[in-house]
């Protein structure tokens, strides 16, 4: 089922949580709402779910306006960051809840409920924990139960609010791959909120980058990462070095003086060399080296005194035999230039 959000605004007191949001989510896609805290992403998700109501604007599912419908009528599956499992019910009853509260004429028979719940337990790979209570489960297991509970009612859309937010790094990675795989199996239109750019880029078909109640950019992970539309997106989607500088005949010239333009360079798009290679470059000396991990992180100080973060491959690091306090040349390979007044 497709979701259309048109001209939605929401204020909390004097705080503009959302201003004039327009968003279309095609049927069957897995979309990430990505942004820092306070960007309005959770509010937007809750408005889609019917747990919050917009001041102005409309929400439609498959072209049908559902702005005035309550969460109960919208048939959405909602997964909360802190699971919100029913503590006094075991895993089985938690999952069965949505089926049991249906009006009598639509309620499946006990046997049908049983088989549905067991099917979902298989899906979340917790078949042998059906009789456990939420307090007896780990965080990752609880979140999977919450997901199964939301799926039990066969929702038209699945909405997840920071679904992996309160899990530790390892479980989180496992679970988000599993979610991606699950989505590929059941193809339900899904929207999840996250502040973790890595998570959004890895899992989603489309990423909606939000900032201060507005949408900054909508695009595929590749799009938003490699072709950021604004300094904010560039900044938010990865580490970045900011320089004063300007473009000179298609070549970036980086220096220490303010010129009204800001040059954005990702740490892995800066190269270190012992010799200047003729192109754009500047001089620096090495302050600190961290060689743990797939890339070596080198912190340098430019000749005009600014700190710069650079990532080089392990091979390059060994070939150059870099050590602390070395004087080196830094060569930007790919940069983006934005006007200062737009830079955040």
């Amino acid at each position, binding site marked *: 089922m497709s979701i259309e959000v048109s001209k939605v605004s929401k204020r909390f007191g004097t705080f503009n949580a959302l201003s004039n949001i327009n968003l279309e989510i095609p049927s069957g896609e897995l979309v990430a709402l990505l942004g820092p805290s306070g960007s309005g992403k959770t509010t937007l998700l809750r408005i889609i779910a019917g747990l919050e109501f917009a001041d102005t604007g409309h929400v439609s599912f498959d072209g049908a306006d559902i702005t005035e419908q309550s*969460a*109960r009528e*919208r048939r959405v599956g909602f997964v909360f960051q802190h699971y919100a499992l029913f503590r006094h019910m075991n895993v089985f009853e938690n999952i069965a*809840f949505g089926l049991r509260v*249906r009006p009598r004429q639509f309620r499946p028979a006990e046997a049908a409920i049983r088989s549905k719940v067991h099917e979902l337990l298989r899906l979340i790979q917790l078949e042998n924990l059906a009789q456990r*209570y939420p*307090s*007896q489960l780990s965080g990752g297991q609880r979140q999977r139960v919450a997901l199964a509970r939301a799926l039990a009612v066969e929702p038209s859309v699945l909405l997840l609010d920071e679904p992996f937010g309160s899990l530790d790094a390892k479980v989180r990675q496992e679970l988000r791959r599993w979610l991606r*795989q699950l989505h590929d199996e059941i193809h339900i239109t899904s929207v999840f909120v996250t502040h973790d750019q890595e998570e959004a880029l890895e899992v989603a078909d489309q990423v909606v980058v939000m900032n201060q109640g507005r949408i900054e950019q909508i695009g595929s992970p590749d799009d938003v990462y490699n072709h950021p539309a604004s300094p904010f997106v560039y900044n938010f989607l990865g580490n970045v070095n900011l320089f004063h500088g300007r473009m000179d005949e298609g070549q970036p010239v980086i220096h220490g003086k303010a010129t009204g333009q800001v040059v954005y360079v990702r740490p892995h798009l800066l190269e270190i060399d012992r010799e200047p290679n003729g192109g754009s470059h500047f001089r620096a000396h090495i302050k600190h080296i961290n060689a743990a991990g797939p890339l070596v992180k080198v912190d340098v100080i430019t000749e005009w005194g600014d700190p710069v973060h650079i990532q080089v491959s392990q091979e390059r690091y060994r070939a150059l035999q870099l050590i602390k306090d070395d004087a080196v040349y830094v060569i930007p390979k790919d940069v983006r230039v934005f006007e200062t007044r737009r830079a955040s």
Partner: protein
Amino acid sequence: MTFKQRSILPGFGLTLGFTLTYLSLIVLIPLSATFLKASSLSWAAFWHIVTSPRALASYRLTFGASLIAALINLFFGMLLAWVLVRYNFPGKKIFDSMVDLPFALPTAVAGIALTTIYSTHGWVGRYLDSIGIKAAYSPLGVVIALTFIGLPFVVRTVQPVLEDLDKEMEEAAASLGANRWQTFSRVILPSVAPAALTGFTMAFARAIGEYGSVVFISGNMPMKTEITPLLIITKLEQYDYAGATAIAVVMLVFSFTMLLAINLLQKWSSRHHHSGGTPEVVEGEALHAPVYAEA
């Protein structure tokens, strides 16, 4: 000692010792004195006293009225707690403080005030009288007094639980299609039930032991509106110490059995309410994530 546990906070022996001594001095020794005194009677005499028609009628009234009062307090206490937690209205703080008044007020004052209002010429009593209900000087009066003194218990036990109740649980229920009544009865009620049961138990226990307020409003007619604590006092005033303690022993055993039963029931009903974040098991089995070729 095999049940001694190692812990970062020392002092198990000391605190347990203190607890036992303290409980002995304050509770156990005085109560055993009651049993001791009662045992000066022969079994036949004891049985004769505790099963006399007057005593039996007083048990019925005491336990019956206490149970009704505690049930009323259970229902309205939860309602009051709900209103105080969920809604904002002018004077909320004042209402909130008023709930504790029955704790602070001397019970005799409460008894006299209630009698004045509920007697046949009182503000409320005259209207009840006109529809044929006699409030003061009847078992109903006893229930009213016991409801009054037991009011704070359920409110004060349920209130913090309602305040802590995860609002997301209600939202989850709504998004799963539950209507308001289903959300209340299936999600909220089971969450507050253990606390409500605790409040009910305390209100019930308090009502069984209540004396001060009841003696004013009940009229103290033997066989009709005489509560057991009053019967005990009456016997004491007649220097019938053994008789008084015999009835006291019956009350004690009765009360203790009931409280124990309710406590066990509560333990059973709250067995899954350990709210702690630490799970009893770690990640049971690894998630069979699809194998991804690392780039």
